[in-house]
């Protein structure tokens, strides 16, 4: 019997009936996440219902030295939840309870499989919401959000997952259940865990902050003849001291795709559209709106539309939110890239992307969170044309190089996963990466939790040189504080 088979034989005792999947056909439904070109059939899949069950599975993995990977809804775009053929995939889809809602404390406690949107839906009636809003919010899990430190269109003003999570219950890679809380003294392990892409353990309960719904929301769509003037408008808005909830931009190709897919009816002839959303106290929003509208016209917007109702707002967002999927209408295949540049470098980087299109003979549709310089270039290609996939892949990589050259990042929200691990050395020195992995060594010296993700080469942890293992015997005996 293989190690995995011996482990699998013991899973039944740790889990409820039907919670262990070994049937090859069913296993295959878990072979990839949202990034479908990385695939691997998991050795075994488990569907635990409680933190104790997760811990029991992880303890078995530790005992047998078998790797494990957590999976939420599988919408990740960097292959973070790519399973191991020799390992256990721990899926949180049966951990979907909202455990507590405390409006007065402005917080909720939820299990990791709860979807992002479900939290907002549970508290909306009381005038609250959960602020981070990834476009995938209807399906992605809060556990996945924690692992990826997910953002959304509104994170320009409100921040990311890490700014809205107050505590986590975590199963560590040795199978212990620990509490990481912003209330506790000591190192900010909560902050270090969020965004660690499942490599430091599995989140089994998440305490999120609830935010008060804004009094007023105004959404505006401005159409420009070209992307440069749209970019100028963005800079001018920021320079005017306005912090919109969101500023999103789409270029002509992205607009074309959105029109084809959802008939969003954006102004014809637009070379770029800007979606600006302002929210907050009514009096503030009104003043800021006047400023933004004027800036858009001054920088050359030929049409400005303002949503007067929730329906009109939805109509404006429809084109933007459908953009990823929509390019499927104008291209047989595409790569969704995710890179970040300082806002002031946007014009140069966009021009650079333009040059790459010519160089590689492929098209790139640009959709991006313009306010924080987070680009999502959609690199279009035809997978039936030999060599085109490779060219698209190469161009996509060059876009990341452009981001790094301009002081940016290789990922703003989709994470490193397996997909971008090889780019990490372009952004960080070997010392940087080794230092980050000290954290990994502290949590997971055996490297069993989602191995092969984030870091191109694992650091061998080994024993800590020159220190006692564990605490001083006197401390253990309660006789002394350790000095």
């Amino acid at each position: 019997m293989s190690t995995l088979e011996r482990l699998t034989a013991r899973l039944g005792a740790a889990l409820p009936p039907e919670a262990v999947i070994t049937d090859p056909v069913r296993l295959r439904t878990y072979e990839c996440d949202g990034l479908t070109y990385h695939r691997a059939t998991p050795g075994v899949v488990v569907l635990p219902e409680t933190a104790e069950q997760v811990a029991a599975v992880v303890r078995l993995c530790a005992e047998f030295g078998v790797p494990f990977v957590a999976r939420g809804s599988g919408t990740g775009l960097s292959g973070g939840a790519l399973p191991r053929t020799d390992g256990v995939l721990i899926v949180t889809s049966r951990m979907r309870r909202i455990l507590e809602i405390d409006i007065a404390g402005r917080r909720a406690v939820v299990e990791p499989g709860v979807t992002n949107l479900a939290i907002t839906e549970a508290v909306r009636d009381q005038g609250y919401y959960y602020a981070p809003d990834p476009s995938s919010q209807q399906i992605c899990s809060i556990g996945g959000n924690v692992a990826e430190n997910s953002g959304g269109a509104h994170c320009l003003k409100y921040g990311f997952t890490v700014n809205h999570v107050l505590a986590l219950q975590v199963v560590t890679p040795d199978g212990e259940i620990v509490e990481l809380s912003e209330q506790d003294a000591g190192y900010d392990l909560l902050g270090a865990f969020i965004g660690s892409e499942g490599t430091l353990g599995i989140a089994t309960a998440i305490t999120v902050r609830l935010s008060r719904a804004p009094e007023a929301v105004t959404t505006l769509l401005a159409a420009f003849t070209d992307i440069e003037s749209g970019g100028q408008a963005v800079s001018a808005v920021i320079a005017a001291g306005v912090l919109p909830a969101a500023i999103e931009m789409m270029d002509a190709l992205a607009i074309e795709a959105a029109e084809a897919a959802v008939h969003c009816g954006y102004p014809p002839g637009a070379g770029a559209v800007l979606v600006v959303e302002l929210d907050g106290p009514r009096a503030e929003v009104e003043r800021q709106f006047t400023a933004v509208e004027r800036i858009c016209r001054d920088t050359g917007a030929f049409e400005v539309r303002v949503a007067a109702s929730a329906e009109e707002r939805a109509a404006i967002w429809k084109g933007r939110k459908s953009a990823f999927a929509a390019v499927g209408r104008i291209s047989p295949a595409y790569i969704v890239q995710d890179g970040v540049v300082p806002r002031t470098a946007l014009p140069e980087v966009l021009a650079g992307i333009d040059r790459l299109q010519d160089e590689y003979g492929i098209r790139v549709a640009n959709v991006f969170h313009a306010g924080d310089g987070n680009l999502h270039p959609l690199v279009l290609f035809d997978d039936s044309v030999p060599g085109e996939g490779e060219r698209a892949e190469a161009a996509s990589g060059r876009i990341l190089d452009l981001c790094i050259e301009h002081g940016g990042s290789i990922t703003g929200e989709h994470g490193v996963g397996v997909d971008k691990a090889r780019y990490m050395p372009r952004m960080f020195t070997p010392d940087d990466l080794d230092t980050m992995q000290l954290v990994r060594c502290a949590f997971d010296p055996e490297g069993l939790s989602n191995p092969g993700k984030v870091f191109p080469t694992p650091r061998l942890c080994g024993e800590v040189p020159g220190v006692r293992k564990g605490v001083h015997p006197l401390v253990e005996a309660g006789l002394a504080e350790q000095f």
Partner: protein
Amino acid sequence: MDGARDPRSDETTEQAGKALAASGVAVRAAGADDVVAGVPPRWVALPETAEEIAAVLRVSEEHDLAVVPVGGGTKLHWGAPPSRCDVLLDTCCLNEVVEHEAGDLVVRAQAGLTVEALAEALAAKGQELALDVPVPGTTIGGLVATAIAGPRRFRYGTVRDLLIGITVVLADGTIAHAGGKVVKNVAGYDLGKLFTGSYGTLGVVADATFRLHPLPPSRTWAAASFARPVRSGPGGDASEEASAPEAVRLAGELHAALAAAAGSQAEPVAVELDWPDVTGPATVAVLVEGAASAERADAVRALLGPEARTVGERPGWWGRLPSAPPPSRDGARAETDAGRDEEPPAGRGETLLELRASPSRVAGALAAVHVTALETGTPAAVRGSAPAGVVHVALRADAGRTARFADALRARVEAADGRLVVLSAPPEAADGLDRWGRVGALALMRRVKERFDPGGRMSPGRFVGGI
């Protein structure tokens, strides 16, 4: 104490001193002003770059020297005294703004730059680091290492939420970066979070990059006063039974006012409580900033009750840590009568606690402070961002009372899922005091420390669990 290591022979010390001098970094012999919480270092190193910090730390590793970083030195007495301290690593010469691209609302600054100097540079471009104005002399490194935040944490969060990149130097001299200079970035682990609030125990912060905010066009405060809890016994009998219900009433009123302001759609950036003596009156003050601040502050004022008012000036106590009230009639009088002419200077002899509680449990936490103060006969002051879940408590008493106060308050607070940390205490009170209280993941923290500083030489013994 790790008695095996110290005292070392003069010869070893001399060799270490020579090696430090040969490192090329400015080093001087330590003096009386350089003492860290009662522990005198031997040398003070004054590096000017991250590379020079690394040079000092490499020599320290070779010669097994314990290192304590210092910025402005305003909070060196916070945390436990170091178990040993050979080198005080002073960041005062790392004091430049490395990069400020105004259009990106991002600044990178060296660790020794003071927060005032930074604020001045940023204000010239109409921007600010939204962390309020700490005491003069505070450095960027000290701000990051202590993770202390002011009133506007309610809206902007704390250092960790505004820090987007960091350069650190580890105990073995490794220079490492994490994050970057873009606000949105999820590449790699966030070492900035780990170093925020690490009190110099994981390594030295060499520089930090922050996201900025535009300076708000206007600021308006709304404030309301709340009458003191009435004592029922004649002559102000301070027994718990007599005034606990009154304290509960006042705590409840304060809670209601704080919660109403915090939940207001006028979106205040700070909601603060000031209760200079928990047997006296209290104030709730709310800051609204940005467009239409006056109008919005007025909306908040209406929520605070008929007596509330709005003002364009910050209250005098705003953003300051609380000071202990003068000793009261009963308990503490005997102790201070002797030295009556010599009032200790503000801050001296004082104990400062940080109390954390869910915003839904503010009333209980405030009542707990009141009851604890009465029970131990120790006057206390409370100030802080209750709706953000954090207030500070200041008191001044002898060692025994201080410990009893902290223990009793902690028991009450932890029973309601809160936390109590002793940020600073006078040396004579320090011994019998559990500084940190309950910490959920202490074992993991120890493992992190062991990986980053296997020799246990960075600010040893200063932090939770003796880290």
